[in-house]
């Protein structure tokens, strides 16, 4: 019995369970495959066609993505002659890694002192701000700052990747990425700063546990964060970095096989991570549940946000880079300032 108990203890240990199984690597991979399937299926519905179907007719072609993934993973990795092979291979791996790292720091659910399968970890992952345990890979009280900081590193590796491939289209894409990164980071940071001021904390769990969803307390911040998220992850209408008809695939132009999966999958992981942040901060996260069901409920919200962002593909084309920059600096930055003021006011009057 004790061996089984120990096994269960280590299996559900959040640092392992969150990072590797749920909602970490394995769950994220499954969600990403389903997301791409949904993206194609939803677009197909709008566009009067079937979308993926023939690989598995009974489940609407959901296994098409598994087939695609297997094909991509086993296809040859072509390394151009005139590149530095080390950097060429390393860059997409770094991109993918740093898109994933923020997921470790996002609180997915609260752990009650007793009654949950996660209760043994109550004291280890104790959050003094909310007087509960947290279902999280690694707990830091200032997790908003750390998440923002880590997700802001990704563009640097995208630049490295483009530089390493020594391709003109990649460089043009990288220049676009760097220009966009500057503008969307400002938006995301400012909207989260507004919320942080409003809730008097830099701990995402405290914001969630306050019980007032951020979208009610500060709808402007939610709007700015959502658009910043679309820009950060290259979803339509801001699919500017990888614009196919303009710069082939942007920074990933020269990549093939597994490296291409790493280079392109990164944006979906970022979207999923930021969807979790959006769900926690603006949609009430795991409330009113806690423990594992709370994490599941939180994931459902995040997946809805994620699927909404990918659905925009069926509605919009892409903006030009200067239009996106003008939109973010001229129109959204004032909205972000307004959300900051709103946060200050509401934080003083309503949320104590």
């Amino acid at each position, binding site marked *: 019995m004790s061996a089984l108990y120990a096994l269960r203890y280590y299996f559900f240990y959040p640092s392992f369970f969150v990072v590797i199984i749920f909602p970490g690597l394995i769950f994220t991979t499954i969600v990403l495959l389903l997301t791409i399937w949904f993206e194609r299926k939803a*677009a197909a519905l*709008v*566009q*009067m*066609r079937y979308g993926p179907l023939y690989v598995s007719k009974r489940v609407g072609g959901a296994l098409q993505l598994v087939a695609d993934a297997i094909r991509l993973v086993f296809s040859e990795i072509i390394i151009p002659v005139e590149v530095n092979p080390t950097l060429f291979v390393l860059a997409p791996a770094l991109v993918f890694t740093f898109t994933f790292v923020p997921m470790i720091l996002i609180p997915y659910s609260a752990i009650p002192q007793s009654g949950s399968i996660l209760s043994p970890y109550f004291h280890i992952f104790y959050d003094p701000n909310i007087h509960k345990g947290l279902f999280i890979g690694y707990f830091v009280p200032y997790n908003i700052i750390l998440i923002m900081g880590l997700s802001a590193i990704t563009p640097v590796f995208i630049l490295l990747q483009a530089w390493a491939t020594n391709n*003109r*289209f990649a*460089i*043009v894409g990288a*220049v676009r990425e760097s220009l966009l990164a500057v503008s969307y980071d400002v938006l995301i940071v400012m909207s989260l700063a507004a919320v942080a001021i409003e809730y008097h904390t830099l701990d995402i769990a405290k914001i969630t546990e306050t019980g007032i969803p951020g979208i009610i307390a500060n709808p402007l911040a939610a709007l700015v964060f959502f658009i910043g998220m679309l820009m950060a992850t290259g979803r*339509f*209408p801001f*699919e*500017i970095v990888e*614009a*196919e*008809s*303009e710069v*082939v695939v942007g920074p990933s132009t020269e990549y093939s096989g597994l490296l291409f999966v790493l280079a392109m999958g990164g944006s979906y992981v970022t979207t999923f991570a930021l969807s979790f942040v959006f769900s926690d901060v603006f949609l009430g996260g795991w409330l009113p549940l806690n423990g594992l069901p709370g994490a599941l409920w939180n994931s459902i919200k995040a997946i809805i946000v994620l699927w909404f962002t990918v659905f925009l*593909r*069926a*509605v*919009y*084309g*892409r*903006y*030009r*880079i*200067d*239009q996106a920059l003008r939109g973010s600096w001229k129109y959204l930055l004032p909205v972000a300032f307004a959300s900051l003021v709103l946060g200050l006011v509401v934080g003083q009057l309503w949320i104590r």
Partner: protein
Amino acid sequence: MTSQLEFSASGLEVEIIPVEGELNVGPQHPGSGHMRIYVKLDGDIIVDAKIDPGYVHRGVEKLSEYRTYMKIIPLVERPAILDSIHMNLGYIMAVEKILGVDVPERAQYLRTLAAEVNRIASHLYGLGIWAIFLGHSTGYMWGFGDREVWLEILQALTGARVTNSYIIPGGVRRDLTPAIKEMVEKAIAYQRRKLQDWYKIFVNNPNIRARLENVGVMSRENAIKWGAVGPNLRASGVYYDVRKIEPYAAYDKVDFEIPVYKEGDAYARLLVRFAEIEQSMRILEQVIKNIPEGNILSDRFFKQIPPTRLKKWWEGQRRIVFPGYYASFRPPKGEAISRVEAGRGELVYYVISDGSANPYRLRMITPSYRTIYVFEQIVKGSRYADLPAIYGSLDYFPPEADR
């Protein structure tokens, strides 16, 4: 393209110099056809663009010097298979001028019908390609999906979706049946409904408007100077359409308008195309309603069809079987020029006959060929991201330009 950083010896003094660079876009371009564009960039601004056509050159003009007049019909359709009725019609009109044939009224109406169905299909194809250039995948799928409706009509009428070879000297190959009339009516009703959705998701989409308004502006003077044709010319405020200026087929008997927009930007070119689809449907309605009874082939050729074959094919299925004359007829010496308004603009054929079974010379000036110079001029000074938007707005089709 990239900014060059210079570090002086004193410290971190950074000077940003806009660097010129060149991009080779294509020839395998993620759009239509094969063509290379040498783009010279200064930062994000296009300084110069040179088009390098010829990747899909088929040698139509030279090949036609070695083929009989009938065998040239499928050949001239090849450069623009999605606009093949017009390619076919222009050539046949030139040949008919040399032969001196009168075409029966009903055949003229049928030519108009096929041409307008093909014009709608061609515009929808162009719009689809344009939409995917802008990243709008729904417009792409809808363009190709709606085009299918019109191709079905062409298939029922001519027997082929594209490269129909429908129009022959002296008339057309097949007659209109009540079933096809019904198909056309249904298609018009469907397309009118669908155009409302098009306006909602594509034309009035703020994203698409932002991408197209004030992009690739061509003034009236420039449009005339650069030799723009078709919808591109009409979007710059020039009232010019061969169907009105020099009516052929049954265009002088139907009532329609030529949409003209003054703005001359890519968005005006989009609106012109949609307005033309609506006008084409108006023409189709009138053709269906007013089409006269009668023969679909000139009597001169009709009389040569053997009676047994005539009974089986013409009376049974309302189809023309080729009389022996077509096998290798030798038109009298002479030359002829013909103009038609193809989907992309004015299409000119010049045929010289030396009295043999093959033309001495066939010259075709396609609308896309004339778009090359317009394209090179119009993209100067615009942003690199506008290159696909302008490309799509001109509806440039490389095989048509290369011939």
